């Protein structure tokens, strides 16, 4: 059984259905990419899995715990880095982490050691006594990743963790993520709009209008759809209007190559 098991999960809001019966399973130690255009249902799915909202149908288990019936166990099993910043800017970096650790029930002895570890992991040890207010966007993101790890979660949810960051910082953050998987066998569930980042994932699910329309390894997806990059695969599968345009230029391009070969 996977560390995340989702079965026919549905979320109906008052006026619209955001998630329409999705099912998937994530294995332990996997980096699982959850891609989709804006409004496809990514954040709704993350909010359901992280117990912030309840599904209207279907079920999901994380680390073997039911997201509706065993919320506290689920909450202990997951770490979250939200799409929007969620730090207390009037506290120092370390104070933010202590707040988190104490809410998750860690004892002082445990968390002093753990906080030193996670701060080191994201290279913020020297900044630990600075107010978060003074941090750059990238530093805040790193601190949020550190915070999400403080309570030893089994699954880390990253909702667009690199949004709005410069290429250097993005590269930086990916280094941490890959290190986490390699050294800690952490399962990572992430969404992103940067398609080149999706290439780092072990498997990718593409969600559109509340339904999963593709789920496979990046290599397999590219082969199936017949494209060279995840970006093209994504556009092929989701961007209907764009796809047509893309398809035609793609076709022209292919024709040119064929013509070239024939010559």
């Amino acid at each position, binding site marked *: 059984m996977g560390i995340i098991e989702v079965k026919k999960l549905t979320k109906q809001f008052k006026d619209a259905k955001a998630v329409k019966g999705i099912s998937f399973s994530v294995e332990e130690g996997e980096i699982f990419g959850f891609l989709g255009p804006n409004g496809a249902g990514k954040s709704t799915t993350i909010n359901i899995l992280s*117990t912030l909202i309840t599904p209207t149908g279907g079920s999901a288990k994380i680390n073997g715990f039911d997201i509706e019936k065993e919320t506290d166990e689920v909450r202990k099993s997951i770490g*979250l880095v939200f799409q*929007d910043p969620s730090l207390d800017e*009037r506290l120092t970096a370390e104070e933010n982490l202590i707040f988190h650790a*104490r809410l998750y029930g860690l004892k002082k002895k445990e968390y002093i050691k753990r906080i030193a570890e996670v701060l080191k992991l994201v290279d913020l040890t020297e900044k630990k006594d600075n107010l978060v207010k003074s941090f750059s966007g990238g530093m805040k993101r790193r601190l949020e990743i550190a915070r999400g790890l403080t309570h030893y979660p089994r699954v880390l949810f990253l909702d667009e963790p690199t949004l709005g960051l410069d290429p250097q910082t993005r590269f930086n953050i990916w280094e941490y993520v890959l290190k986490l998987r390699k050294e800690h066998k952490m399962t990572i569930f992430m969404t992103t709009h940067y398609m080149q980042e999706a290439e780092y994932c072990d498997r990718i699910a593409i969600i559109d209008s509340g339904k999963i329309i593709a789920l496979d390894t990046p290599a397999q997806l590219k082969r199936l759809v017949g494209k060279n990059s995840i970006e093209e695969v994504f556009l092929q599968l989701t961007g209907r209007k764009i796809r047509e345009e893309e398809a035609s230029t793609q076709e022209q391009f292919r024709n040119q190559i064929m013509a070239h070969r024939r010559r």
Partner: protein
Amino acid sequence: MHFIQAVTTIWEREVKRYGRDRARLVSTFFQPIMFLVIFGSGLRNPLSAGGLGVDYLKFMYPGIIAMNVMGIAFFSSISTVWDREFGFLKEILVAPVPRSAIVLGKALGATTIASVQALVLLILAPFIKVSIDPRTVFHLFVFMLLLSFAISAMSLVIASIMKTMESFGVLMQLFIFPMFFLSGAFFPLTTAPHWMQIISRINPLTYGVDSMRQILLAPQTDPAVLTKITLQPIYLNVISLAIFAMIMISISIVNFRKKD
């Protein structure tokens, strides 16, 4: 105990943040002093001939303290809406802690801030010629705690419903100002029109003002005069405030448990 650790963690953050906000620390003194200086000095002479029986400044002083308690408690708790806007509330809500611990931590944080801040207003007592002894201070402090807890709880109910800070101006106009003015802080409710007396009964601040007035003025006022300007025995005020606080805390716990 994880529950207690969660409550103290949330409480500590509230207090720490307040302590770091110098502007707020200073500005909270401004309003009560303004009321005392302008209203107090302005109305003192015209009212001295009336049937109040006590000096107007002395009459108003306990009310101003109660209003100050309410203002700080209310603002501190309503900061939960800022937490929501800045995303920090999510961080709290995904943590494995009972929603009741979140509500209690928030309410107790605001209670601490409001009570300690209001205590400072007692420095003004000699200027208004109200003498206070340590016992009075202690009694007052108990009421500051009780009143600020009730108000924080009420404010949390509002914060659990209010999703953005946009409606805050409306809230002030329609809610906070009427509560200030209908509390008996500025004039005795005993001689107010009947409709006003009824409305003031559902206002928790009324009970706070009434208690503090009795505690502060009893040692230096003729009991006959005091009964004329106060509503009910202190123990009834305690009961009223406690019931109000309990109802509000329960509603906010229920609201924080709700999910979409």
